[in-house]
C-alpha cells in the first residue's frame, strides 16, 4: 500500500522497522486478546465432542445445525423484536432529554443531567435484581399495587410481558448514557449557527430540525450501533430474572443466553462457539449496514 507507493518513488530506500516498533505492542496485545480467541472459537466450532465417542472433526456441521435450530431462531427473533421496539424508544427518550437539557430553558439542567445519567452507574446485575423485586406480583411492588387498589396488573414476569419488562429495565439503564452522547454532540455546535437562525427568524423546532439534528447525525449513528450490539448481546437481565421468572425465561431466551446454557449445562462447547460466531457475524453485518446508511446520508 503506502509502502508500495513509497517504493515506487524511492526504489532504493531500506525497509524501516520504526513503524512496526510503535505499532508492535498494540498488535501483540490485539492478537492475543482479540484475534486469538476468535480464531480459537472458529477452530473449536469445527469439532464435536460427545459424551460417548469423544471429539471428532465435523467441518461445518455445527453451522448447519445452528441454521436449522428452532431454539436459535426463536432467540434471534426475540432479540430482533427487542431491537426494533426498544432501541427507537430508548434513543427517542434520550434525544428528547438531551435536547431539553441543551435548550437552556430547563431549571436545574445539571440536576436532570445527573439524575438521568445515574441509572447507568448502577451495575446491570443490581438493576435487574432491583427491578425484579418491583415486578414481583406476589410480594413485589406490583403485588402491593394490586392489593392496595384491588386491581390486577398483568404479571410483568409472566411469559407475555417479560420481554417488555426487560426492555423497560434496559431503557432505564441506558437512556442516560445515550443522552450524554447526544448532549455532548449538541454542545459542540457553534453558537454562530443559532445566532444566524435567530436572525432568520427560525423557531426552536426549526432549529432542532435544521441545525441540531443534522449536526449530531454522527452521534445518532454511533448510539444506534452501540444499541444494536447491546440488544444482540442481551444476557445479564434475562439471566438474573430467570430465577424470579423461572419458566418464562427459557434457556434459549436470547442467543447469548442460549450459548451460555449450551456450554455450561450441556458441555456443548463446540456448538456454543458456533452460536457465538454466528451471532457475532449477524451483529457485525447489521451494524455495518447501519453505519453505511447513516454515513451516506450524512455526507
Amino acid at each position, binding site marked *: 500500500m503506502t509502502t508500495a507507493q513509497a517504493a515506487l518513488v524511492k526504489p532504493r530506500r531500506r525497509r524501516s522497522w520504526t513503524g512496526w516498533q510503535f505499532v508492535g505492542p498494540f498488535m501483540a496485545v490485539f492478537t492475543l486478546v482479540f484475534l486469538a480467541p476468535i480464531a480459537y472459537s472458529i477452530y473449536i466450532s469445527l469439532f464435536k465432542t*460427545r*459424551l*460417548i*465417542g469423544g471429539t471428532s472433526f465435523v467441518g461445518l456441521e455445527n453451522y448447519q445445525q445452528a441454521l436449522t435450530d428452532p*431454539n436459535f431462531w426463536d432467540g434471534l427473533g426475540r432479540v430482533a423484536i427487542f431491537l426494533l421496539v426498544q432501541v427507537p424508544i430508548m434513543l427517542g427518550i434520550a434525544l428528547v432529554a438531551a435536547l431539553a437539557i441543551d435548550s437552556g430553558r430547563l431549571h436545574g439542567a445539571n440536576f436532570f443531567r445527573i439524575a438521568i445519567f445515574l441509572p447507568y452507574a448502577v451495575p446491570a446485575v443490581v438493576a435487574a435484581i432491583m427491578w425484579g423485586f418491583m415486578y*414481583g406480583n*406476589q*410480594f413485589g411492588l406490583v403485588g402491593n399495587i394490586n392489593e392496595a387498589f384491588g386491581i390486577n396488573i398483568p404479571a410483568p414476569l*409472566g*411469559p407475555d410481558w417479560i420481554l417488555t419488562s426487560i426492555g423497560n429495565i434496559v431503557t432505564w439503564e441506558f437512556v442516560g448514557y445515550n443522552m450524554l452522547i447526544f448532549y455532548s454532540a449538541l454542545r459542540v455546535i457553534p453558537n454562530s449557527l443559532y445566532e444566524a437562525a435567530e436572525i432568520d427568524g427560525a423557531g426552536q423546532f426549526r432549529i432542532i430540525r435544521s441545525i441540531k439534528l443534522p449536526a449530531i447525525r454522527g452521534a445518532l449513528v454511533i448510539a444506534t450501533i452501540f444499541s444494536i450490539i447491546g440488544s444482540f448481546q442481551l444476557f445479564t437481565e434475562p439471566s438474573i430474572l*430467570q*430465577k*424470579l421468572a*423461572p*419458566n*418464562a*425465561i*427459557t*434457556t*434459549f431466551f436470547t442467543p447469548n443466553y442460549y450459548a451460555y*446454557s449450551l456450554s*455450561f*449445562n*450441556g*458441555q*456443548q462447547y463446540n456448538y456454543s462457539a458456533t452460536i457465538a460466531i454466528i451471532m457475532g457475524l449477524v451483529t457485525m453485518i447489521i451494524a455495518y449496514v447501519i453505519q453505511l446508511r447513516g454515513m451516506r446520508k450524512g455526507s
Partner: protein
Amino acid sequence: MMYTSRRNLLRLAGAAAFATVALSACGNDDDAPAGETVTADDVTKALTDGGELLIWSWDTTIKPTADAFMAKYPKVKISVVNAGTNADQYVALQNALQAGKGVPDLAHIEYYALSQFALQKQVANIAGFGATALKDKFAPGPWNGVTPNGGVFGLPLDSGPMVLYYNKEVFDKHSIAVPETWEQYYEAAKKLRAADPNVYIASDSGDAGTTTSMIWQAGGKPYTVSGEKDVTINFADAGAQKYTTLWQKMIDEKLLSSISGWTDEWFQALGNGTLATLVVGAWMPSNLVSGSPNGAGKWRVAKMPQWEAGGNASAENGGSAMSVMEASTRKALAYGFLDYLTNGEGVKTRIDNGAFPATTADLNSPEFQGKEFPYFGGQKINELFAASSAAVVPGWQYLPFQVYANSIFKDTAGQAYITPTKLADGLKAWQDASIKYGNEQGFTAK
C-alpha cells in the same frame, strides 16, 4: 454458605438415584470397567504416611468431620473447598477436568449426576478398593445411586427419603384432616383455598427434581438405561400419568402458589402459614429451623400421601455421594478419608451437625430414631424418615445426562405452569428434547 447449601438441596430435589440398573443388566463383560485395586494395607499405609487432600463440597458437615480426621491422622492435611452448589459445582468440576488442572481428590456429587461422571470415567471405580463389601452398610436406594453400570463410583453421603411436612396449626384452624392420599391432598388444597384465599397447600413453579420424584413414587419409570449407551425415555407410563392427571388439576384450579422455592418469600410463607405443606426429602428440617424460625412448633411430619389408600410407597428426593476423582494422584489416601466419612466414625460427626445419613445402622439406631425435635412439637421425625427410606419404590433410574436434562425442564415441562400447555404435553416435549440431546451425544436414545 448455609443458605446456599439449602438451596442446593432443594434444587436437586430430584436427586437420589435408585439405579437398579443393576448387575443383571451388565451381562456383557465390557460394561463394568474393573478399576484399579487398592488393598486395606495400602490405605492404612497412606494414612500413616500422610499427604494433602483437596475436597470439593458444599456440605457444611464435611469440614468438622475433616478436622476430626486430621486430629486422628496428624500427617494428613485436608482442604475443603466450596466450589458452588450442585449444578454450579458440576460446571466448575467439568471445567477443571477439561483443563486437566485443579481437579480435587474427592468431589461431592448428587446421585442424579453421578452416572454422568461415571460414564466419562471422571470418577474412579472404587470397587477394587474394598468398597463392594460395604453394600450392606448402606440403605438400598443410596447404594444403587452410587453403582451405575456395575462399578462403585462413590460412597453415599446422605439420602432424602420423601415425607409430607405440614403446618398443623393451619390444618387445625380450618378443621381439615391431614391428607393420607393424593386425592385427599387435592381436596384439602381446595378446602384451604376456600377457607382462606391467602393460603395455598404448596408452592410449585415447576422443578425437575420434584417432578421426577413424584413420578417415582407413583411407580413411573420414565428412564431406562441399559449398558452404557441405550437410553429409553417415556413420560407416558401409568405412573407418570397418575402424577400428570393430579397435578394438571392442581395447576388448572390454581391450587398451587407460584412462589419460587428457596427464596426469602418462600421461607416467610412457610413460617407464616401461607404455605401449608411441603413434600420433600428428609434433609429439610434444619432448613426450616434456620429459614422459617417463626414456624417453630407448628410443623409436623407425616407419611407422604399415597396414590392408593393404605399404600406405603415413597421416593428419594435429593441425596448425594462423595467420589474419588480419577485424576487424583492420592486415591488410597482419598479412599481412607471417604471410608471414615461415609461409614466410619465420621458419620456420627455429620449427624451431630445436621446431616441425614444413608447408613442403615444409623438410620435404625434407637438413639437416632428416638430423637425429639422441638421445632416439630417434640415429634420423633427420624422414625418417619427411616420408614420412608425403607418404602422407596425400587427400580428408578436417572439418565446418564440428567444434569443437562434437568436444565431444560423449564423450556418444556415448565411451560405448563405459565401457559395453556398441558403438563403431559410439556413432559412429552421434555422427553423429546432429552432424546434429541442423547442422540447428539452418541447415545442410542428413544
